[in-house]
Structures are given as C-alpha cells and as structure tokens.
C-alpha cells in the first residue's frame, strides 16, 4: 500500500468571509464553520477563535486536536467509518494542511483538564503551542447527556477539519513524502538482511472520555489486530478521550503518529518496518489477558524480530503494557516500550503501577506529576471555569498573582506516549 502525503504549509489563520488557502494563510469563514457545526441539533452555540504561537492565550478544556487533511486520490475519505464510508484508506494521495489544527473545547464533565498555552513555560510542554489553531468553543443544548455531548464535540471537530482539509484538495504541495508498506512476503524478500520491526499501538478503551475509534468501531469491542500504517495517516484511528490530558492521544497524534513516521523513515535503511498492530486497554481483566495474548501471537506469527510498544494513559494501562511486553519478550522477540511516569511531585515514588525485568528497554515521556507554574494569560479561549477547576482541583493551586501551579498532567500531550515530544526523565 502506497500513500503520498502532500504537505501545504500554513503559516497563519485569518477569520474572513470566505474560506480559502492563499500564500500559506488559511482564511476561514467563521459563519461557514458555525453553520457546519450547528447542523448537529445538540449544539446550542459555537464560537470560532484563532490562537497563534506566541500569543498570550490559554485554550482549555481541550477536547481534541485535529489536523485538516483531504483524500485527493485513492479509495475512501478521511476519518472512515466516522465521517466517511467504511472503506479501506491509506493509499493514493492525501493533502495535509501542515502547521495548523482544529482544537475543540467543551466542558463535558466538571473536572476536565486539557490545557494548551500558546506562550510561556507551559508552551514548551505541548507541541500544539507551535501550531496555528482554529479553536471551536462548543456549547450543548441544555440537558444533553455526557455521551451525546462527547459525540457532538468529537464530530464537530472532525467535520470542521474535513471542511478545511477540502480547501487543500487542488493546491500544489510545498513538500511531498511517499510512504509505502509492502506485504509480509514482499518486504521479507526485498530486505532479507534487515531486522523485522513491528509497532504495537495500545489504544485507550475504557468508557466515556476514555475511548478510541478504529474505522468507527469502539476499540474496546475489538481484539488486537493488524492495520496498515498508512491507514492511520488518513484518520483510521481517532480519539474519543481527553481525561488526564498529558498522555492521551488526540486525533492529531494519531494522524501524525511519530512511531509510524519515524519507522517509515528508517524502513529499508536500518530496519524493515514489517507490520503495525493495534490493541486495546480494557477494564475487564480477562480482556487484558486476551488482548495481550493476541498481540504476542501476532508478533510471533508475523515473524518479527522486534516490537516497539506505545502505551496510552497510566495506571491500569501499565498492566496491559507490561503484559504485552512480557508476553512478546517470552516469544523471543525484543521490545522497546514507550510510557510516561507518575513518580509523585518529588519524583521519588514508583513510576509505574506494574513492572517486570523483561521490560529492560524503556523510553519515557517524563514524570506527569512534576509541578509547573503557568502564568496568567491575557485571554482564555474555552471555559474559564475549567481553569478554576484545574487550578483549584486536585492538580493545582491558584497563586496571588493569578498564575496557577499545576502538575504537567493537565497539559495536552505533555508526556505523550507515542513519543511525540522530547520530554523525558531520569
């Protein structure tokens, strides 16, 4: 399967009466976006705003971050099974509005987190502070249940991203990159001397605000399976979760999964990126055993020499992570795991809720309990009271000068476990 990504670089977003892309500027008709979002009868109102890198702006509570993309050639459309029809994506040509994102905010439950600061110390911990962000602040109709509320905001973000992506359909790409994955047989024949490396992505799948969707299917209802890595570039996997924002994958993370891109960039050179697998992180313990058994079975069946395993979340997924790692290692297949840590504010507590000596190669996204002081911002996009909840809630304190003392865990993507950032710990 071969997919060409054409990147169109976006250096600014301007609200305008017409939506278009011109000279690196994305012009967005707020009215058009509003009309699109209001198609959902559960939406009471929506505000459209722009947050640019360096501006004194805080976005919160962040629900999802989505990169606008459009399928130009090849079967299917972006976000298959959710927006588009269920049809296998990942081949042909896709255009990407690079450097910008749609950010959705919505207060679904009273204790939500998810902060993106566009400047100041907090900005260093989230790569979304480097993007031009079109922010949707969505208010639901009164009495809307949490599940529907989550669904409404999720769909609003995807639809807006697809709408903006559409603007890039006939544009000339600033840069192109080709990703090709071969069948198991072909790649083995083509690269007989390179180690066969697989990627096992663990998907959060536990309940409301803890879910992930694959071709529209709730990941908790599926067994571990194989996916073509180019499929994720067209939005085959997307996010329905946002609680404990630091180590949850937004849809942007899925579209730009750095393990996938970096493995592709090494493919045929230092390794053979032989397969990508996905598995879930369910609450039911028997599910955990079954899913990890399945991951190990597949890794063996695919004849892999090594598997990189990325986690999503903390606590109970630590159990899935260690099960996956142990069972794959016990098959004689080498693993490297990517996780993050909850080592306490002082860094002295045990970082993971599970451990095994076979997990001898660990990459960490850092200690999510570490405390950071976020200065007051001139403007908050989203829900002011969420800042107060975050600041006054379990993870932080408001200080006299209006700055808030919080743990890194409230910052969207701060300790991301697909290895999106450079934060680490020792």
């Amino acid at each position, binding site marked *: 399967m071969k997919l060409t990504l054409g990147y169109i670089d976006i250096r600014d977003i301007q609200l305008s009466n017409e939506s278009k892309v011109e000279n690196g500027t994305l012009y967005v008709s707020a009215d058009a976006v509003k009309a699109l979002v209001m198609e959902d009868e559960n939406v009471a109102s929506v505000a459209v705003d722009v947050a640019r890198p360096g501006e004194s702006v805080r976005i919160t509570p962040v629900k999802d971050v989505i990169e606008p993309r459009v399928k130009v050639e090849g079967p299917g459309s972006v976000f298959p099974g959710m927006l588009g029809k269920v049809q296998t994506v990942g081949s042909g040509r896709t255009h990407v509005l690079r450097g910008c994102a749609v950010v959705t905010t919505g207060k679904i439950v009273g204790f939500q987190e998810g902060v993106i600061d566009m400047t100041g110390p907090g900005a260093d911990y989230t790569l979304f502070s480097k993007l031009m962000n079109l922010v949707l602040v969505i208010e639901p109709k009164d009495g809307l249940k949490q599940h529907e509320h989550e669904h409404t905001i999720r769909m609003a973000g995807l639809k807006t991203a697809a709408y903006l992506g559409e603007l890039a359909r006939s544009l000339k790409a600033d840069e192109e990159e080709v990703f090709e994955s071969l069948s198991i047989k072909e790649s083995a024949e083509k690269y007989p001397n390179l180690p066969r490396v697989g990627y096992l992505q663990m998907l959060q799948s536990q309940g409301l605000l803890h879910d992930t969707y694959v071709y529209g299917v709730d990941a908790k209802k599926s067994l571990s399976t194989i996916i073509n890595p180019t499929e994720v570039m067209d939005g085959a996997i997307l996010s329905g979760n946002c609680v404990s924002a630091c180590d949850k994958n937004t849809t942007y993370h899925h579209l730009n999964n750095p393990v996938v891109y970096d493995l592709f960039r090494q493919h045929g050179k230092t390794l053979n990126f032989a397969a990508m697998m996905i598995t879930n992180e369910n609450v039911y313990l028997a599910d955990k055993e079954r899913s990890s058994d399945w991951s190990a079975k597949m890794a063996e069946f695919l004849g892999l020499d090594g598997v990189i395993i990325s986690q999503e979340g903390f606590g109970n997924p630590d159990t899935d992570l260690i099960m996956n790692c142990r069972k794959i290692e016990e098959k004689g297949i080498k693993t490297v795991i*990517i996780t993050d840590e909850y080592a306490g504010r002082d860094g002295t507590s045990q970082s993971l809720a599970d451990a095994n000596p076979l997990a001898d190669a660990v990459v960490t996204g850092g200690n999510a309990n570490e405390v950071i002081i976020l200065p007051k911002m001139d403007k908050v996009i989203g829900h002011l009271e969420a800042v107060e909840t975050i600041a006054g809630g379990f993870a932080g304190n408001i200080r006299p000068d209006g700055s808030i003392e919080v743990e890194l865990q409230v910052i969207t993507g701060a300790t991301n476990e697909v290895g999106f950032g450079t934060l680490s710990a020792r």
Partner: protein
Amino acid sequence: MSKVKVVQYINQFFAQIGGEEMADYKPEMRDGVVGPGTAFAAAFGDEAEIVATIICGDSYFNENVEEAKKIVLDMVKSKAPDLFIAGPAFNAGRYGVACGTIAAAVQDELKIPVLTGMYKENPGADMFKTKVYVVETKNSAAGMRDAVKKMAPLALKLARGEKIGASCQEGYMPNGVRKNFFEEKRGSSRAIDMMLKKLAGKEFTTEFPMPDFDRVEPNAPVKDMSKATIALVTSGGIVPKGNPDHIESSSASKYGKYDIDGVMDLTEETYETAHGGYDPVYANQDADRVLPVDVLREFEKAGKIGKLHRYFYTTVGNGTAVKSAKAFAAEFSKELVSAGVDAVILTST
C-alpha cells in the same frame, strides 16, 4: 554575585603525604588549595574559591568513623563554606566510603550543600548515591580532568541553590529521584534507536530502569540448632498493644524493636498489628498467628533451639513495597550480627 566559598576533603594520597603507609594520618586542615584542588580552582575561575582543604587518612577515617566525622565536621563548620566537596575518590574503596560518609554528614548536620565523585563500582557509590550527589568519574586518577569538568559546574549550581537538572544532564549518578528534562530527539526516534541497538546486541541504556531484582547468595545453614539463637523478624506489623512507637500503618518510616524477655505467648490484651495492608482482625485476636512466639518458646524449652533472641523486629512493609524496608533491614541486621544471632525467621503476611 559574591565568590562561592568551598572546603574540599581529600585523602593522604591525593595530598601527596603518602600511600598506604600513611593511611592512619589524622585529619588536618590547610588553608587554600591542596592537590586536586588546583584543577578545581582553575575550573572555578573567579566564581568560587577553595578556602581550605581537609586531609585525612583513609584507614584513620574508616576505623574511627565517629571521631573522624566529628573532627572534620568541626573543621568544616569553622570555615562556614557555601559548599563542601569530597574527593573525587575514583576507584579507591575506602576513600569513596569516607567521601560519602563525610559528605552526607556535612549535608545533614551542617546543612551545607555537598558534592562528591567516584567510579560507579566504588562501594561508596552504591552506599551514598541516593543520599548525596555523587558524580560518576573514571576508575583512576587519570580521569581527574574529566571529573573536574563534570563536578565544577554542578558544584557551583549546588552552592548557589540553582535548580539541578536530571542525572544524565548534570553527570551525577541516578539517585532514585525522577527529574524531567528535554531530550534532543523525540521519544519515537529514541525508541527506534534503542530498538536497533537491542536488536544488534549492543549496549543500550533504558530511560527507566525497572525496580531492582538482584540476588544475594544464601548463607551456610545452622550447624547445631539446639545451640542456636534464633531471632524473629516480621513485616506483619506486630507491636505491643497501643503501638507505643506509633508505627504507621503504611509506607512505614520506621521499624520497631521490642523486648520479649519472659513473654511466653502473645495475647489479644498485650499485642496487636499496626499493619494497614491486611485485615487486622485475626492478628489482633492472636498475634502468634503472625509472630509465633508461643511455639518458639516451646521449642526453646524442649531444646529444639538454643534460645529465642530477646528482641523481635517489626515493620509494616508489605510483600511488594520494599523501598524503605531495605534501609531498616540493613540497620537492624547489623544489630543482629553483633548480638550473636545465628539465624532469623522472617514472617510476612
């Protein structure tokens, strides 16, 4: 900013007084720089000054720890420095232990920031790396230049109370405190680099070492049980009724040592458990269910064992949380050895 005042501690060898034959050399303080201090002074430039150097023989220090500690502490105190540097000791074992001991004492008792340096296999490293900042050096004095290069900047930061970064950035040995920092490469590409090394059988360094799973060789068995002194130790939290030492129910910060001279049986009225890690009803009813004093008294009387040791030791560490238990055990094991205990029965819940 005023100049940072430093006092350095070195041994007889680095003071060029002599080798092993001079290892009994008693503590002496000289003004200014001696030996390796020259290299440190050069690295500090105008930022810091070594105001005094304390010299002490390794044997003297290790054989007269308490006395040596007191003399050196008084010397350091008299200079009221901003920072205390011990060593670097490289691979010299007794020197390393002395450096760690005195650095920890200065830090704890004088509240002055301290720094030492040694080779990773120096026994002093394992003993002190979680207590004081220990910079990893090469295994011989030939690595002095490298050691100074790592120690001098960290020393200045410590003296000025600046934020100390992660171990791999600052060059100190990992001390169990996890610290965040930004790597050059993103996580995904670090994972791939690690994978390639692991696949090629090359050395790689995990960013998060799993908790220790090391082993200790079994000791020789007891030869004659009928003459042996047996001590009871429990992690089941058995304490005299009322928990006189207020042993906490979890994440214990202390352990208990209790005299059971003449105690034949633990009863509901006299003993209980302080452990929060299990349902306490059964142990409170009859603490012998956890700490079997009654049966061991029988054995003592029947001559099956020589005698039951006069004291038992108790902690509330549960099976999985071993972090703090380790330090306690090291401490009371020494007492058991000097009390002539031949074997230990350790009971866990």
